[in-house]
């Protein structure tokens, strides 16, 4: 009994002293679009999510095991900057963030171009950087990193999941068509979807692939072309203004009634444009977010709290930001436990984050590929149905992580072409 008490007192003293040392706030750089077209659907919801999570964590109100204040007892100090501008400017501002503002780590980046440019710089500056949203699989497929992580799955998952859903929900599908923005995101999304469909439904015909300019805004001609083509399934990875314009212009013309339309990022529009989206439209949330989020303690805490504070439900960008912060927190505290309660270095946090599994409002996140730096999650797709005036998702199908993400060491494109070999 004596011995136990001694140990307890020693432990308490150690914890206290470690706690005192760790009192200095953790400066975290947050980078997302605060201006321009990507601000409204992604940047601002992500910033709001960061504000909410950081405030909750700093008050120690996170659900277990996220109950400690901030990161391991140190409050989080947010340094938020805008991601907008040409790549040169994005890289310059990242360097300023790290070398002038001296942040402890960086969480951010929505544009795949930014992520690709920033990754080697993060390695060069040895600063732990967690990409929370950008979709390109190229980051960990083209190179290996020590300091760069991504706690959200890649965009490959969206296209593969969409193809799987189409095969299940429209078993007699014979033809597909695409309407995607003509830049990397749209090209890759359509490319992956087309390749997946060709594997799942051999002989499927591609009627047309419309690729209007990003932010074109006027899609009458494309809609006419798609109506004329009459494909069974239409795939679109449009987002924000373009997505909303598409829905507004396509709805009165009956495009989405004629063909089963699958909108891989449609979740962001489902609340505002509920009246315009016809039943039977397939919406994606880039993962188990928003309407597809599991009913766990984290989601209850996050979704309710976010909506109460911002009068709008969190969208998938908000979820991705939330789990990015929670993942880093978990790794930080794991590293602290491993080094005796001291404030962990970037290397220690990185080592803890590698191959880690943690839970968040979207469910389980497993950082399992990209040599332990790239996360995978399950995904879900469902169809819209107006029930009592409210838009709900029905016929929801979930696909486990391994089914929609490539295995370790295999490039997404190759994986799809091989027939999703495990």
């Amino acid at each position, binding site marked *: 009994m004596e011995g136990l008490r001694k140990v307890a007192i020693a432990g308490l003293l150690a914890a206290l002293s470690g706690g005192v040392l760790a009192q200095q706030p953790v400066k975290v750089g947050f980078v997302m679009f605060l201006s321009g077209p990507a601000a409204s659907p992604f940047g601002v919801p992500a910033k709001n999510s960061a504000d909410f999570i950081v405030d909750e964590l700093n008050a120690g109100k996170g659900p277990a095991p996220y109950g400690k204040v901030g990161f391991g007892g140190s409050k989080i100090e947010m340094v938020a900057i*805008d991601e907008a501008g040409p790549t040169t400017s994005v*890289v*310059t501002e990242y360097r300023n963030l790290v070398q*002038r503002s001296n942040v402890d780590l960086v969480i951010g980046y929505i544009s*795949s*171009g930014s992520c*690709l440019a920033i990754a080697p710089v993060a390695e060069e500056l040895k600063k732990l950087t967690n990409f929370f949203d950008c979709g390109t699989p190229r980051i960990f497929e083209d190179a290996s990193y020590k300091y760069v992580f991504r706690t959200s799955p890649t965009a490959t998952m969206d296209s593969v999941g969409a193809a799987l859903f189409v095969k299940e929900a429209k078993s007699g599908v014979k033809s597909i068509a695409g309407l995607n923005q003509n830049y990397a995101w749209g090209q890759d999304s359509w490319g992956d979807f087309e390749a997946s469909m060709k594997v799942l439904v051999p002989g499927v015909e591609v009627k047309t692939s419309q690729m209007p300019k990003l932010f074109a805004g006027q899609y009458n001609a494309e809609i006419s072309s798609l109506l004329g083509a009459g494909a069974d399934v239409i795939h679109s990875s449009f987002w924000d203004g373009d997505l909303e314009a598409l829905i507004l212009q396509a709805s009165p013309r009956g495009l989405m009634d004629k063909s089963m339309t699958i909108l891989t990022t449609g979740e962001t529009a489902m609340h505002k444009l509920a009246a315009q989206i016809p039943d039977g439209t397939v919406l994606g949330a880039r993962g188990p977010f928003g309407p597809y989020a599991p009913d766990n303690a984290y989601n209850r805490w996050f979704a309710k709290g976010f909506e109460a504070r911002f009068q709008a439900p969190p969208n998938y960008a908000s979820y991705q930001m939330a789990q990015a912060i929670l993942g880093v927190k978990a790794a930080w505290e794991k590293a602290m436990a491993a080094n005796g309660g001291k404030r962990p270095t970037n290397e220690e946090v990185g080592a803890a984050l590698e191959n880690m599994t943690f839970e968040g409002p979207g469910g389980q996140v497993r950082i399992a590929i990209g040599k332990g730096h790239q996360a995978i999650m399950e995904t879900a797709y469902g169809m819209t149905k107006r029930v009592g005036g409210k838009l709900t998702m029905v016929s929801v199908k979930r696909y486990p992580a391994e089914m929609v993400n490539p295995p370790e060491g295999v490039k997404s494109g190759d994986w799809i072409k091989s027939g999703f070999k495990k």
Partner: protein
Amino acid sequence: MKPDRTPQLLAAVFAAVVVGGLALPQWLLFILTIACAQGLVVLGLNLLIRAGLVSFGQALFYCIGAYTAGGLSRAFGISDLLLQMLAGTASAALAAFVLGFLLARYRGIFFGLLSLALSMIFYGLIVKSETLGSTDGFNLAKATLFGIRPGEAWVRYAVLVAAASATLAAAFLAWRFLKTPLGQLGPAIKDNEIRVEYMGASVRYAIHVNYVIAAALAGAGGALAATTVGHIDPEMAYWTTSGEFVFIAILSGTGSVLAPFLGALIFGAIHTVAFDLSPNTWQMSMGLALLAAIVFLPDGLWSLFARRKTA
């Protein structure tokens, strides 16, 4: 007539950069290098502006230079900074030589808009190319100099010195060019083309030469930016990039070959300050700064200021 002390000034600034760079923080070294790259482009742009031709398509050559450097890095593993700059210069100059036959026929706003159209076509072509990564672009291998890669702590300094050296050479050559009869034709062409022809000089030839030189400088700047940033993407050919160069050109004015670099530096400073102080309204800050420059900095607008509207 005051003796033209430009070469001495250039040497002094170069020395200041080389010596001062040892004491400056890393992020500032990076900004200075980018200023060199942008300054190179604007140096070329100024040659055209002196002749009354404001090009809204310098981004085309900037991008060609960058993608040449990127191509060398990706396809042949060549990461030498100076080689990349030379290659970028050459390919941009070649493109300008060809396009110059078309563009030298245009003046005023049409020159600007046609150059813009050509740059946007190039943008469209790259975006369509999935091998080049479309709008995501691709990364370049880390820069080396004569086969050596300096230690991580010295990289930024080494790249800056290399960039400053190349810039010094380019500025000096530009200064020499402006002293030749061909180089002095610029303002004459802007003032009255027909008289220039009566004098026996060929306006078309002069414009073509200026265009190629401007493109070569833009290509060098693009290659330098590509290696410094480590990443290239098609946005380097977008009209907003050209717009930035014109912005800097106005800030700096055409008074001296040193002006573009000062302008680029000030532009970079304004940009960073705007980001820092008003992250939600940095565009407004930039716009106000540009307005202030135009209204209160007539020295910056020196050569354009003197032009009268046709009666």
